[in-house]
């Protein structure tokens, strides 16, 4: 299309967007477009044509209908903390900003559910329900600013995944706007519901490629009575990995079982100043919750297991404040690592937890092989590691090695029965590798679903489905 024709088309779309949401909710200024051109994924930036802020589900549906009609790409955005470039508007079009849809609609104490709009901040939900002695467990590190809509679209995990699962385990019902302009409701406040396909869990984790979640009902559970936190210190990284497997093998399921290596520890301590043991090669941060006597018994047993696996020291957090400080410090790990080098590239390859020690060793071998600096932290208890490469995007030669190193880490994870991504999503960054995990036939099933719901391909184009898949490095036996 010639540029004047293009301008004319954009002008028309703008007029119609304004008809739907009003002038004040359509922004096409340079500054407005620039500040929604990125998310938390390094090296991705693209300017959208419009930033549109709908006020109701009906407005969302009308916008999608318009975009399908005009083949305009749509990227749904909460706070833009995404780590796989899912909120980056790679192909221009409309950034659909959920800032107005930010209300808690209902807290149902009889059915133990909360119904919220997608732009609600995750922490607002957890704070609100905890006031009623209820509990919403999923706690991604960005929970202070991430929106629940983003959590649902990415099926976010967090520090409590081991015992309590992830976002999908709490999604009971959704309202979704579809590309054809229809609004549908899925699921209900029901534990049992087998009427039809499970559409709720089709949209959860669909990374904005199918529709827009405009309302969600989440499951709540009673708040655990008490919790305790311990730190186990290691001089040998693999011993920490073995402890994780041993704890699980002993039939203990802690809430949180986090692993941090020395690089990560040092960076986090630099930020938080809470006296983390930076001389240890690795630590495990372990939390158990529940009734007092069970927590005491479990923590005692876990400490024993850690010692038996050569932990050099095991420390109990002396107060709730100290425990909270430790959890907050852990949540800052990724961003704190960013202070060491200009670019930090984070992945979240995940393996069955019995393979944690093997995976930790494999990551360090790969880092050595490609001569790149990789720090590792993560949710060791659920096998979800966060190998983070500290590099400089301006150094092209090194960036090539980084890419090769990650390809080999993905390969290794899959070989061990794991996956490319545990909780951050496929997005752009892992799309070329997705076939390694799903196979050609698996990808075709996904394409069929995508085609039937979003035939024009307007929903978050360029994500999940790769234009070119990567060749596998090693063939699987």
């Amino acid at each position, binding site marked *: 299309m010639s540029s004047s024709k293009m301008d004319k088309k954009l002008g028309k779309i703008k007029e119609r967007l304004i008809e739907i949401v009003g002038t004040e909710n359509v922004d096409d200024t340079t*500054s407005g477009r620039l*500040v929604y051109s990125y998310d938390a994924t390094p090296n991705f930036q693209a300017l959208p044509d419009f930033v549109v802020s709908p006020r109701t589900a009906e407005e969302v549906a009308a916008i999608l209908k318009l975009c399908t009609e005009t083949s305009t790409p749509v990227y749904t955005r909460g*706070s833009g903390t995404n780590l796989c470039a899912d909120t980056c508007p790679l192909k221009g079009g409309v950034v659909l900003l959920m*800032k107005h849809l930010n209300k808690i609609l209902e807290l149902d104490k009889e059915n133990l559910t909360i119904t919220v709009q997608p732009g609600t901040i995750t922490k607002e939900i957890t704070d609100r329900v905890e006031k009623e002695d209820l509990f919403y467990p999923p706690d991604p590190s960005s929970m*202070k600013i991430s929106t629940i809509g983003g959590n649902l679209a990415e099926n976010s995990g967090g520090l409590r995944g081991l015992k309590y699962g992830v976002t999908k385990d709490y999604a009971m019902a959704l309202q979704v706007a579809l590309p054809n302009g229809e609004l549908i409701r899925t699921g209900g406040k029901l534990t049992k519901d087998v009427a039809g396909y499970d559409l709720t869990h089709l949209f959860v984790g669909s990374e904005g490629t199918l529709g827009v979640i405009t309302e969600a009902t989440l499951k709540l559970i009673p708040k655990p009575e008490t919790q305790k936190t311990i730190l186990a210190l290691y001089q040998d990284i693999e011993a920490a990995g073995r402890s994780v497997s041993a704890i699980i093998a002993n039939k203990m399921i802690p809430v949180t079982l986090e692993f941090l290596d020395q690089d990560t520890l040092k960076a986090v301590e630099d930020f938080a100043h809470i006296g983390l043991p930076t001389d240890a090669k690795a630590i495990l941060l372990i939390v158990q919750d529940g009734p007092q006597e069970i927590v005491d018994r479990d923590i005692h047993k876990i400490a024993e297991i850690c010692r038996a696996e050569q932990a050099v020291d095991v420390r109990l957090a002396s107060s709730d404040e100290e425990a909270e400080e430790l959890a907050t410090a852990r949540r800052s790990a*990724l*961003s*704190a690592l*960013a202070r060491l080098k*200009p670019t930090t590239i984070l992945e979240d390859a995940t393996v069955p937890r019995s393979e944690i020690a093997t995976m930790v060793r494999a990551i360090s071998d790969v880092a050595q092989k490609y001569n790149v600096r990789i720090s590792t932290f993560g949710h060791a208890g659920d096998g979800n590691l966060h190998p983070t490469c500290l590099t400089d995007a301006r150094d092209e030669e090194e960036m090539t090695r980084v890419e090769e190193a990650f390809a080999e880490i993905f390969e290794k994870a899959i070989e061990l029965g794991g996956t490319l991504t545990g909780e951050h999503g496929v997005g752009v960054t892992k799309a070329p590798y997705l076939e390694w995990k799903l196979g050609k036939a698996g990808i075709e099933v996904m394409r069929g679903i995508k085609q039937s719901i979003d035939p024009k391909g307007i929903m978050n184009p360029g994500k999940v489905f790769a234009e070119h898949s990567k060749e596998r490095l090693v063939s699987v036996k």
Partner: protein
Amino acid sequence: MMTSSAKDKIQKEFKEEMDYDELLNCMRCGFCLPSCPTYIETGHQEKYSPRGRIALMKGITDGVIEPDDDIAHSLDLCLGCRACEPVCPSGVHYGHLLESARTIIQRNKKEPIRVKMLRKGIFNELFPHQDRMEKVTSLIGFYQRSGLSKVARKVGFMNLFPESMATMEKVLPEVPKRSEMKQRPRFFEHEGEKKATVALFAGCLMDTMFFETNKATIKLLQKAGCDVAIPENQLCCGALHGHNGELEKSKEMAKQNIEAFEAVKADYIITNAGGCSAFLIEYDHLLKDDPEWAERAKNFARKLKDISAILVALDFQKTHRLCLPEQIITYQDSCHLRNVMKTFSEPRILLQSIEGVHFVEMEGADTCCGSAGDYNIVQPDMAMQILDHKMDKVEDTNAQTIVTANPGCLLEMKLGVERANKTGSVRAVHIADVLLEALVE
């Protein structure tokens, strides 16, 4: 409107002068967003957030976008409270980036002659000259004492000014006579056991409009066992200049202050204005590229302490009895004292050790009150919106006394009390004044 030649120049100067490593250091995690008052107050608009502003600066530097008035406005609307810095895991020095960006834009701004002259007058001819500050302040004193202020209010003269300034005029403290300011000695001896020698950074506003608070500060230091010197030739810290894109002027002022304090052998340099102290403690950053001054600036910055920090360090609250009539007190942090000086527990320790005081922590005490230097004058709408929300939080505490640790915050809280029609039932005071009031001899 920004002209296209100004745009080109700004873009070029961004490329040359912005600290690119610092821009890259922001990994865009968004952890700063919930701490940013303008992000919250504008209903979560990224362009008024630290991450958004850094992205705009980087966008100009990278040549992805051109500078324009919208972007200048986004930077202008920043309070500069720096609440984003302590919560930034990557340790981005946002304040430094903001200062550089504002300096470049200010340099290339086409302002009406009237505004230019006023800026020049205030920044170059008034603040850097303490004697002129005294004269101007005495004029205010004359205005207050002569009854002119009452006349002005009656005839509605103040209605000609923005509402915030008109209210501000009502809440200004009573200014001392110029002769009193002139006659104050330069040295005060410790009382009781001698514990330290300190030099007081008297400040331009603190030493004129808030002269009484400086007197209280000196008295407290003496009681705590300090010899107190007030070095001659010191002047305004230069923060207003630095924050408004007049960095060169602030460097000159920094040098004169460093020299003035080198003339006195002191263990600590004490301030009682959070806003000034945050600028003073970064003299080392301001002068880092000046070989003659870099080391001297470091020595200066190393000695700097806020009045509450030194009092707690010297166990003042343990060695002196503090007592007030029964009342609820709350404390509003000075953003710069908290986020840059990292002094926030000490004022609370001191207030909690006063008998008769029921200390109630205010929700959001760590967020800006809207004063932010001259922000309430240049961005009155946003400033008043922030202030009114702040006063709701004050009301939740049921406090009769709001304590602050910075002249700007103090005036702002007084303004808030006036706007909320609470004058008479709620008061705002500086921590030095309330401590002296509580001190049982």
